[in-house]
């Protein structure tokens, strides 16, 4: 048994490929924990960032600078009365958020955090992702139907119509990225997520820059479509408060509602990961070809540690700026402990980076590599998350017919055009 466990550590393949169920399960648990932490962090960042955009502070009281606010919200939602409308279909009402959650989390099995840091590298990875995320629409429709009230039903139908429309443009943009993977000597492309990133590695260019401006255009189309997929601003008419229909999750309260929010954030992270994988080089660090020297490798491997040092420094700054009043004593202590934890983690990362510099096959080196891969991937996804929040703060929302018009009359033709031109250019160039 221990052999089964330990034998995987030496390999450089995903647990799925190695057929190692134990490590697959471990990876699933790690990803689940990671996504949960990410959703909690995202909740906090959204409230704080939105607040700062709006010249206010956001949560400040529940924990230093509101850091414990997501936990307080989760606790509150769990303790709320579970209201199910009497006329609602009980089983379907219960199962609807689970469908959304299931589909949102299932896609994480193929997301590549590194060349072997994925649960399973299916050779139809991207197809799997698109297919499973499309199933999320079912959760929304079922939720609207189960509520047995015509406002949620209308909202659910609208949300689903919106998601379905933008999936077409999304899919076409994805196809043009896939096409680019086949622009190598052998002419073989790949649908596997890890393969796509490796194709970018081999071709020496992130697909966003390939065949400029085609790659950029495809990326932009996908970036817009993914906002509409996840029902975020400016395409959030279905859940806006000032519209007549209050959205598919009107009748849900407490924990069930929080499951919808969880599914929404998880879906946001999932589609951002697709964008990062397909166009932004996945786990690759910036300038892999331009700055090739080992010295540069070392510098870039210090980034994770320095990022956490930066976060720790900001937290310590927060501690210093808090008023020196007895009311704030607990908050100061709490924030100082948090900052210390961040600093300690930073130190750990730096030690690993330094230790893994020299040898190529030592455990520290492998660990270091793995951390770097995950770090760059998560950093790029985090940029997208911030952009989601930025869009929400800045822009008004589109009316539903304008939204559909954009999806069908603007995005679809452009993505078709990009696909065709990519194909033509690819043939000409090769």
């Amino acid at each position, binding site marked *: 048994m221990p052999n089964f466990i330990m034998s995987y550590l030496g390999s450089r393949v995903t647990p799925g490929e190695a057929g190692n169920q134990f490590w697959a399960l471990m990876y699933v648990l790690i990803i689940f924990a990671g996504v949960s932490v990410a959703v909690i962090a995202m909740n906090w960042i959204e409230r704080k960032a*939105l607040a700062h*955009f*709006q*010249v*206010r502070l956001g949560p400040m009281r529940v924990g230093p600078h509101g850091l414990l606010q997501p936990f307080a919200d989760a606790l509150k939602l769990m303790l709320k009365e579970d209201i199910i409308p009497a006329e609602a279909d009980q089983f379907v009402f219960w199962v609807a958020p689970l469908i959304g959650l299931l589909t949102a989390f299932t896609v994480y099995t193929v997301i590549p955090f590194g060349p072997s840091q994925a649960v399973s590298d299916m050779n139809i990875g991207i197809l799997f992702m698109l297919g499973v995320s499309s199933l999320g629409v079912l959760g929304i429709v079922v939720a609207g139907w189960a509520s047995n009230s*015509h406002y949620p039903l209308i909202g659910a139908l609208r949300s689903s119509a919106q998601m379905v429309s933008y999936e077409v443009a999304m899919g076409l943009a994805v196809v043009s990225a896939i096409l680019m993977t086949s622009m190598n000597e052998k002419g073989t492309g790949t649908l596997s997520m890890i393969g796509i990133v490796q194709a970018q590695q081999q071709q020496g260019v992130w697909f966003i820059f390939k065949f400029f401006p085609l790659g950029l255009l495809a990326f932009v189309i996908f970036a817009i479509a993914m906002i509409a997929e996840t029902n975020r*601003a*400016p395409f*959030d*008419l279905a859940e*806006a*408060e*000032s*519209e*007549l229909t209050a959205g598919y999750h009107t009748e849900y309260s407490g924990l069930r509602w929080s499951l919808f929010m969880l599914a929404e954030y998880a879906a946001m992270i999932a589609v951002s990961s697709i964008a990062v994988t397909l166009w932004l080089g996945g786990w690759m660090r910036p300038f892999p070809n331009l700055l090739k020297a080992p010295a540069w490798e070392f510098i870039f491997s210090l980034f994770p540690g320095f990022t956490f040092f930066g976060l720790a420094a900001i937290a310590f700054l927060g501690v210093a700026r808090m008023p020196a009043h007895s009311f704030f004593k607990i908050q100061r202590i709490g924030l100082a402990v948090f900052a210390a934890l961040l600093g300690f983690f930073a130190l750990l990362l730096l030690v690993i980076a330094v230790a893994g510099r020299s040898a190529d096959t030592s455990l520290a080196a492998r660990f270091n590599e793995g951390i770097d891969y995950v770090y760059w991937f998560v950093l790029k996804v985090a940029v997208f998350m911030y952009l989601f929040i930025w869009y*929400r*703060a*800045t*822009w*008004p*929302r*589109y*009316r*539903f*017919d*304008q939204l559909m018009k954009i999806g069908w009359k603007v995005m679809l033709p452009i993505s078709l055009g990009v696909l065709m031109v990519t194909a033509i250019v690819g043939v000409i160039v090769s």
Partner: protein
Amino acid sequence: MSDGTNDASNRGLSSLDRSNLDLETPDKTYLDSNELIINMGPQHPATHGVLRVILKLDGEKVLGTECVIGYLHRGVEKIAENRTYTMFNPYVDRMDYCAAVSNGLGYCEAVEKLMNVEAPPRAKYIRVILTELNRIASHQLWLGTHALDIGAMTPLFYTFRDREEILKIFEKYCGARLTTHAFRIGGCQYETYAGFEKEVKNFLTFFAPKIDEYEALLTTNRIWLERTKNVGVISAADCVALGVTGPVLRASGVQWDLRKAQPYAAYSEFDFEIPIGTNGDTYDRYLVRMEEMRQSMRIIEQAVNRIPEGPIMGKVPKVIKPPVGEIYHSIEAPKGELGYFIVSDGSTQPYRLRVRPPSFVNLQALDIMVRGLLVADVVAVIGTIDIVLGEVDR
């Protein structure tokens, strides 16, 4: 909608065909013939107060609306018949509570006219400065809430934050931020506080880049343009026929502002422009109000630099007893023509005091403006007319 003849029956202004409406239970859905009656109830985040709008829809298109108002009716006109003129002064602030200073100005000037007295020049200048500050504050509130209804959350916080500076000036001047009761019959009661001019000038320098900030967020934003252009169009002829005044009228192309047409309270001494629009849609009303804020700043700048010295209260007796007669006096409030029709019977209490509220008359135009629009636009149009229910219902 305007077809050359002035006959009302041609304009499609007849109210909803009542035979189809079951208004006793408006939440009932009629699923035959695609017509749906939806109730935007008195409590709704986007109706700016307690306004009930019953929409008759064909799918998502609006066929007609009916506004049910009166939820905030407090009987102000009846109360006026039982209060002396001076006692009634604080009541007028509560009507358009977002722009209380204008209400007070209209009322005080109407009674002054009835009494045949005039406020001294210094009082007039102070009145102009405060009224224009009040206009900016009212437009800021409008901008924040209107943008919020359309989905842009951020301008709300920016405008409310900047509005605080104006409210600080009001508070220092008369002690209140919202319902200011700033003026008295015959002039102003309070002398300007030490540092008033300086603070007003500071506000002007503070605020000038802020308008540009609001415009940067919205004016050229593609989503804003798509949500507001050609939405809620009303022609100039319809505006005049419906009695719509204020920025709504000006955005439809009629260059008419009571401050220029029938100047009151020292406005004739200042140099400012009246912005007009061309299309009469929501976007034009937005541009007109933004430009009005700039013009208000211009007026304040001119006024604050040359406030004349002198008394602030005219020769008004202690007991205000206007002679028998009637008067109608109106001013250009931020929302339109605010008029007071006062009938005096020689006693200390008005015999009849009628307030001509701009929001009430402007709200009538809602029906015309939303025909053929989608449901999501109804909210935008209600916001763009800029109503305050306190004034609609009094």
